[in-house]
């Protein structure tokens, strides 16, 4: 036990003495939190719309007014022909072309049905999907308004169409604020990246400067060494989490509905997983450069497959299976559940169990892969 204390003491001294690293550990991640939380959003604003109106009726004007009135759209131009509109799209001047066919108003009144041409720049497929959804909403709102107008007076009340209305009610993030959704996730990334990089480069650094050999000729036990290495990084991770939570609360007003204790408890288990991975990498590499590359490799995969930026449900089956091995996925889930939903210990028990098994496994591997012989 005493031996471990001496290692911890030494690690702390080295970390806090490294004037170059300290700001990197604590300041950069918080800048990341602030920038990314503001920038990483799925909301699309200022969609540039061009349109071709072959009808020139009050109905078509009314439709375009709806777009102009919306804050999401920026109606740029009316084009006299489809070709001109197409070339504007090609130049990148507009993202969407709405084509209103001739006899739009007449057909709408007579046949109750009319087709509207819609072209969306889908280079960014996800954005195009969102744009399409917005446009549908504007059109259907307008559609309902027209129908209501037509129906009034023309038809007896019992024949009024029974419109099916969806009343959305958004839970846990009532204002549909993307920051509420993103901040817990980005906090996860920061804790993960810093602890993984620090631990990944730690043992290999001692290899490089030769001090590991000096350690290896002492009777120190392998698990003592690894535990001594883990401990300071767990504390750094928790410190980062704390600063991050304060920023979330103060700057972004993110609610913290669940138990803070539960959040910290889970974070400890989670950080142990990451540190286990880091030390494992460190044991298998010979230079800090190699360790850094491998750490990056895993971080990128873990982040992109964590459900943070893209929903896991929309991944192919095999990818969904892979995400079960992604610790970040569990941490993102837990943070969102506890922070936004106020989930209890029972609710996140599956994540706790899986993460604990993962932690034991990875740290077992870290101890095993640390060889005192060359």
């Amino acid at each position, binding site marked *: 036990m005493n031996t471990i204390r*001496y*290692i911890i003491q030494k690690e702390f001294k*080295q970390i806090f003495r490294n004037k170059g690293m300290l700001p990197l550990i604590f300041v950069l991640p918080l800048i990341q939190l602030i920038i990314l939380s503001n920038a990483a959003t799925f909301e699309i604003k200022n969609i540039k719309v061009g349109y071709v109106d072959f009808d020139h009726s009050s109905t078509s004007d009314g439709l375009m007014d709806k777009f102009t009135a919306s804050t999401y759209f920026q109606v740029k131009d009316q084009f006299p022909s489809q070709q001109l509109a197409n070339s504007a799209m090609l130049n990148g001047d507009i993202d969407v072309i709405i084509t209103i066919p001739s006899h739009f108003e007449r057909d709408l009144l007579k046949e109750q049905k009319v087709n509207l041409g819609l072209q969306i720049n889908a280079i960014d497929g996800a954005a195009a999907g969102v744009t399409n959804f917005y446009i549908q909403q504007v059109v259907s709102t307008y559609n309902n308004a027209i129908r209501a107008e037509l129906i009034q007076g023309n038809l007896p009340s019992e024949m009024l169409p029974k419109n099916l209305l969806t009343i959305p009610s958004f839970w846990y993030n009532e204002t549909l604020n993307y920051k509420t959704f993103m901040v817990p996730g980005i906090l996860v990334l920061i804790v993960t990246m810093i602890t993984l990089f620090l631990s990944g480069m730690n043992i290999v650094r001692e290899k490089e400067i030769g001090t590991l050999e*000096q350690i290896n000729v002492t*009777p120190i036990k392998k698990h003592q060494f690894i535990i001594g290495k883990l401990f300071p990084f767990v504390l750094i991770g928790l410190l980062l989490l704390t600063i991050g939570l304060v920023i979330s609360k103060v700057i972004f007003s993110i609610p913290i509905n669940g138990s803070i204790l539960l959040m910290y408890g889970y974070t400890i288990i989670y950080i142990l997983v990451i540190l286990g991975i880091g030390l494992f990498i460190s044991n298998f590499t010979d230079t800090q450069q190699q360790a850094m590359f491998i750490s990056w490799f895993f971080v990128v995969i873990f982040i992109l497959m964590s459900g943070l930026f893209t929903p896991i449900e929309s991944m192919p089956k095999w990818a969904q299976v892979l995400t079960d091995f992604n610790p970040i996925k569990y941490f993102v889930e837990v943070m969102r559940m506890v922070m936004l939903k106020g989930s209890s210990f029972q609710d996140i028990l599956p994540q706790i169990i899986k993460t604990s098994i993962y932690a034991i496994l990875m740290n077992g591997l870290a101890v095993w892969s640390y060889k*005192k012989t060359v």
Partner: protein
Amino acid sequence: MSVRDENIIEVEGLTKAFGDFKAVNEISFVVKRGEIFGFLGANGAGKTTAMKMLIGISTPTSGKAKVAGFDVFTSAEDIKKNIGYMSQKFALYDDLTVRENITFFGGIYGLKRQQIKNKSNQLIEELGLEDVKNQLVGSLPLGWKQKISFSVAMLHEPKIVFLDEPTGGVDPITRRQFWEMIYKAADEGTTIFVTTHYMDEAEYCNRVSIMVNGKIEALDTPQKLKEQFKADNMNDVFLKLARG
């Protein structure tokens, strides 16, 4: 000096092979308790590889070796409790102070807090480090670093201390002081196993072995080696052997 008739290191047919290349090729020798044993050889002759097997951080390919009564194959960790080691590359923490380095290594050798305190004070006084004890080791000159390394290797009062080119790159005065430290340790009963490229240092040893291409080609007292090879000094002995 108190060399006793008790083998503290016994090596028989010890071999380390990397693929087809035998870095250490069936070497055999014994070292007596309290002896200063010089382990010589040209660069690449296999000295460091052999030493790493004896200190338990490299597993031999074949052969037998016992260090401080423990087998290198089965009891490497027991060996480590009984030996000190100073590598040819400075291996203390540059970003810790003299005192912190001593405390750390004392701690992982399992010394008690009070013991560490006493030892540190004693070492700092003996080495004349009073003025720099709270300075980062990285800022000290090489000669001082080497003396601190040696002291750290001696911290837990090991039976044997392995020194891998301890005086490489150090000025003559510091080298002299260094050897005084070695003599003092040997006087107190510590066995010294030392590699060096300085042939004047070889003369200070009780016995010397010379390795050439992974084999021990000569092993005796400096005096007898000079007679055997009809040489005036150890330098000539070494040249005759190493050139083949």
